[in-house]
């Protein structure tokens, strides 16, 4: 059994309309015999069969339009007997439809940033650059509070950065005459920004938490010796040591240092450690210390003092807010023993340092008093797993055993 199909009568022919059958079932046809007339865009064309035999069945009704290649009739070759099943197996002719489009290569269109809970509200007609919009979403800045400096008042990246720094700037008591030029106090806006960032973090980031106890007697002893030789303003505080240790540990564990954006993690070649700094009146900011892995401890300490002072005085730079690649949060002497941080997006890890407490500790089979801190890691499970996190924490602990090498 051979199918007699709608032929292609030109490279641009997609379908034809059957206007006349010149045969009927049972007729015997010869090779080259005209069997039907088909209407195409170029006119009516007689079509011939290349198969000799007996017409078994006509499959397409007159005046139906069918795509090229559609079986029009079945021809039994000479001597071939009709097979009942064969006829039944022939599918009905396809209704004409546009050819199915092949699956398209996905165009490489950059996806929009994920929505933040603080939707940028803008007055109708205000222009906001894409970069400014994204930054506002990341920092939870309400665009209606931003003054645009671009052409026709367009809000630019720098405008949002400036506003973010203002929002992070806390209260400073100032003389009335200076008040106008002083950084604006906006703890309310800061709270909105913290809410946006933390809610986004808890909504989007699957956190995992690890805890590790580290004996820091060596650190304390070394600090006491070192500080005895230094003037008061140059003395090192304990808080600088874990920050440096974290930065050094990152060299071996780069997957904790960088940004998770657009559904992928990009490790950062530089280590900028965000330091959580609480602000009187209920604010919190975690601006960056830059390139901490490269800083000697005394320089790290100097920059840390400067950063804390400026943050509390409201003179923090916008870039310092967006630069941190990992955060360290330390509650210090007056705090508690354990602190679990919430990751500041788009970062992927935060280290919590509890206060040092003297505990009974087993050293070489004997129990003795030792200073111990509890260190935690909140990690982004999209980027790292607990196993890597455990090794990372252990590495930080190990580095703290040799403070003179930090």
């Amino acid at each position, binding site marked *: 059994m051979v199918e007699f199909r709608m032929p292609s009568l030109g490279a641009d022919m997609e379908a034809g309309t059957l206007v006349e059958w010149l045969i009927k079932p049972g007729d015997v046809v010869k090779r080259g015999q005209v069997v039907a007339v088909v209407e195409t865009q170029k006119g009516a064309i007689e079509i011939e069969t290349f198969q000799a035999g007996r017409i078994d069945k006509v499959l397409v009704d007159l005046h139906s339009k069918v795509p090229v290649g559609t079986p029009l009739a079945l021809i039994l070759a000479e001597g071939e007997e009709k097979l009942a099943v064969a006829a039944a197996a022939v599918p009905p002719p396809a209704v004409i439809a546009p050819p199915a489009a092949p699956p398209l290569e996905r165009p490489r*269109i*950059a996806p929009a940033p994920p929505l933040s809970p603080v939707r940028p509200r803008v007055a109708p007609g205000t222009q906001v*650059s894409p*970069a400014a919009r994204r930054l506002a979403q990341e920092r939870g800045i309400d665009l209606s509070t931003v003054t645009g400096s*671009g*052409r026709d008042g367009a809000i*630019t*990246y*720098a405008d949002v950065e400036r506003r973010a720094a203002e929002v992070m700037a806390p209260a400073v008591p100032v003389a009335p005459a200076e008040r106008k030029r002083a950084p604006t106090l906006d703890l309310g806006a800061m709270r909105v920004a913290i809410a946006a960032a933390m809610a986004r973090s808890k909504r989007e980031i699957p956190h995992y938490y690890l805890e590790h106890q580290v004996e820091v007697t060596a650190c304390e002893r070394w600090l006491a010796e070192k500080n005895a030789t230094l003037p008061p303003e140059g003395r090192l505080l304990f808080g600088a040591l874990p920050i440096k240790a974290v930065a050094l540990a990152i060299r071996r564990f780069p997957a904790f240092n960088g940004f998770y954006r657009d559904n992928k993690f990009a490790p950062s070649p530089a280590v900028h450690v965000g330091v959580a700094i609480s602000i009187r009146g209920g604010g919190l900011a975690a601006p960056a210390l830059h390139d901490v892995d490269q800083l000697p401890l005394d320089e790290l300490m100097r920059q840390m003092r400067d950063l804390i002072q400026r943050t509390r005085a409201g003179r923090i730079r916008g870039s310092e807010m967006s630069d941190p690649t990992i955060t360290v949060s330390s509650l210090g002497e007056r705090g508690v023993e354990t602190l679990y941080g919430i990751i500041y997006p788009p970062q992927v890890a935060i280290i919590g340092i509890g206060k040092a407490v003297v505990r009974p500790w087993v050293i070489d089979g004997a129990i003795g008093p030792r200073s111990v801190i509890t260190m935690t890691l909140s990690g982004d499970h999209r980027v790292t797993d607990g196993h890597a996190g455990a090794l990372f924490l252990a590495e930080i602990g190990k580095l703290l055993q040799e403070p003179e090498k930090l």
Partner: protein
Amino acid sequence: MKQEPIKTEAIEITYREAVREALRDAIKRDERVFLMGEDVGRYGGCYAVSHGLLAQFGPERIRDTPLSESGFTGAGIGAAMAGMRPIVEVMTVNFSLLALDQILNTAATLRHMSGNQFGVPLVIRMATGAGRQLAAQHSHSLEGWYAHVPGITVLAPATLEDARGMLWTALEDPDPVLIFENVMLYNMTGRLAADAGAVDIDKAAVRRPGRDISLITYGGSLWKTLEAATTLAGDGIEAEVIDLRSLRPLDDATIMASVAKTRHAIIVDEGWRTGSLAAEVGMRIVEQAFWSLDAPLGRVCSEEVPIPYPRHLENAAIPQATKIVAATKAALDRA
């Protein structure tokens, strides 16, 4: 392919001599390589690039052709298919239109049309660009048209290193490679390592780093753009200058990394503005880096006129450093 790591002392050389050195090196290294084109032999090339090569290598390797771009480009395609590694020189891109059928319908399609049975390992070099007062039939920059065509690679060496190094890498490509040499660069003098060799042909290069705006360009416009960047630095604007080097394929990664950093971009292209390569680069930035943009993109292209003959009009018709500075300041609202 990487730049040769060993550097001997640098030598003073022109862009023209760097291209000639590349030709000489290729002809010596591979006996299948030969150069053919109008006046490349006895006349030494219309821009004197092949001067002296006929005497050195003889008429088998340096072949003068009749004035028939379609004919000798087709002969080059045939020779390449048959196993040779021809370098076809076309005097200017304007004349290459006579060979467009050979380049587009034959060279660029044969691997596809033959079901991968045949490739065309052919290199076509041609001069492009305005600035020599050669008027509207010898001065256009049509490389952007060729960058439209799948099946070929389009290169624009702007530096001495690339003039010296791109040819050999192009000859190693199993498919056709077009190399566009801007006419204003031939006399450019500079220092080049005496042992300079082959370079990669698929990466853009950051020729000057900067944080405020990305100036994306290629070929003859690179030097105007670098001049503009120096001027801008005086006004406190740090422009990053990207040399595309390869116009097809485009190195999107380098472009997007720069724009993600600077959040602003201007594309400088000696082609006409409408339907230009600059338009393609700009559209890719919008597709891939939209959320990084802080201002509308800008373009500095040629005016939409046939390139004029009088010098002052010719200069006014094509990108210049002053136009690039003005466009940059406008994009940064620093006008």
